[in-house]
């Protein structure tokens, strides 16, 4: 991975955020500074001083992380009445994830989107999901003619179906657009968001050519007994209001060796996932043996999400 990106503050010019925090602390002394900024937090009950002073996620030590996770677990209990467990499985060395989807097989049943909704603790009233399934006219890839609100038995004649979620681009425009480094690509290729660091500016949402990012306009509503308690800090924990979210390939599952929820839910077997660095993996076989393509290749985003037809 490259040098940490700099961001520009209007007053200062280029400086990285951690240095800024450190300098602030050094000037006033951490306690004095925390006390000095306390009034700002009285505007809102959602953010506390500890959370603000939380260093960038990637710089936290194991103990500091645990403290943050415990705090978030207590918060989930308070806000949702649910006993959740937040973990942070690390990327495995020698693993690069990729995903492929067989468009000859997919019938557009939306079981994947449904599974995502449940697995990732999405807002219930809006029935949100990271996956959008387009019903497309056979003979081309024209998203303008695609419909994602169809409601009739599928597959319909002359149609094919194209589920679209975060493409986990190697050259991700969203990562570049983020002014505060709250979103980045992990060593295993998963593009993540630190919801505690995100300032909600939505630049990433505008930058994503696949419309894969969602913004939390309101606090998600989920009944206590429907909260999925197996949560990842960088993935499916309930997101606070005012931050961006997106598909993480179910990071909390896949880094434990499991399949993403959308793949397991697919009744047709259209989805293939795995480690491309393993020459014997299923995903590698697909990339080597099927004529795969990526969406909007001309943009040079280099997605890790591939599509193919059997013939």
């Amino acid at each position: 991975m490259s040098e940490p990106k700099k961001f520009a503050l209007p007053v200062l010019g280029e400086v990285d955020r951690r240095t800024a925090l450190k300098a602030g602390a050094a000037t006033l002394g951490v306690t004095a500074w925390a006390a000095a900024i306390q009034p700002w937090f009285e505007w809102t009950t959602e953010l506390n001083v500890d959370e603000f002073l939380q260093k960038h996620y990637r710089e936290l030590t194991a103990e500091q992380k645990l403290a943050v996770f415990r705090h978030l677990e207590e918060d989930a209990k308070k806000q949702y009445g649910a006993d959740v467990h937040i973990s942070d499985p690390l990327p495995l060395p020698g693993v690069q994830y990729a995903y492929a989807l067989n468009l000859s097989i997919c019938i557009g049943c939306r079981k994947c989107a449904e599974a995502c909704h449940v697995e990732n603790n999405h807002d219930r009233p809006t029935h949100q999901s990271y996956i959008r399934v387009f019903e497309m006219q056979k003979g081309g890839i024209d998203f303008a003619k695609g419909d994602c609100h169809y409601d009739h038995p599928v597959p319909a004649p002359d149609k094919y179906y194209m589920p679209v979620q975060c493409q986990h681009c190697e050259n991700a425009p969203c990562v570049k657009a983020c002014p505060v480094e709250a979103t980045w690509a992990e060593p295993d290729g998963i593009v993540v968001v630190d919801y505690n660091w995100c300032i909600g500016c939505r630049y990433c949402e505008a930058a994503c050519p696949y419309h894969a990012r969602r913004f939390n306009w309101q606090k998600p509503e989920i009944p206590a007994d429907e909260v999925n308690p197996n949560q990842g800090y960088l993935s499916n924990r309930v997101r606070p209001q005012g931050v961006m979210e997106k598909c993480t390939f179910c990071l909390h599952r896949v880094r434990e060796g499991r399949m993403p929820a959308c793949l397991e839910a697919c009744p047709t077997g259209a989805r293939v996932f795995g480690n491309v660095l393993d020459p014997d993996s299923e995903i590698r076989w697909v990339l080597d043996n099927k004529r795969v393509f990526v969406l909007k290749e001309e943009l040079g985003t280099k997605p890790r999400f591939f599509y193919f037809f059997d013939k």
Partner: protein
Amino acid sequence: MSVEDPSPPAAARPPGRLLARFVLLALVGVALAVGAVAAFGPVRVARPSAEVALPYTPEPKFAVEIRKPAGPPVFHTGIKDANGKSVTMACAECHKTREPNAANRLGRPMAFFHQALKGQHGNLACVACHNSTEANASLRLADGTSLPYTEVMQLCAQCHGPQYRSYQHGAHGGMAGYWDLSKGGRTRANCVDCHNPHAPKYQPVQPARATNDRGAAKETGHE
């Protein structure tokens, strides 16, 4: 895309928390202007880079299990016994005494028995798959070899090589469980779980409820 496009980024955020953050950033800025910048060391990134690592190819410790049919199917007579249980018969009970009729095919209705069976699988002859020399208690491969019903996938494989090959490489037929077989096992569906051997076309379904984008849904009330 037919997605309701989100509004332009900038102004659209709930106030409070985020405003607080920006104000804080400015505060940090002022503090910094007073303080000394140069005194601080390089930034440490905790996560190791994967670039040097060898490909992760663990020894499988868990099995891939393909579901199998329980055994030969049974014939449902449609009759209930005294206890209300439906009466079934083994295929062989009739077929050990009947001459097989090679003219029966899936492309046309059965004339006077098994009429419920609606075939739509090319125009295959019944005896292409059912082993009439064993009273239909088994299946039959093209070379005449007897095949137990539990091994039906081999039957499909002989005519559908490409799909079978894809299946073996995980690119047809799906799976559930672990991609990493050193951490857990996998279960897979059988060809006949998704394809009725007599009418294999995958059946249409009613899709799950459409999903929404919260952003789009809330947009109207917001700006």
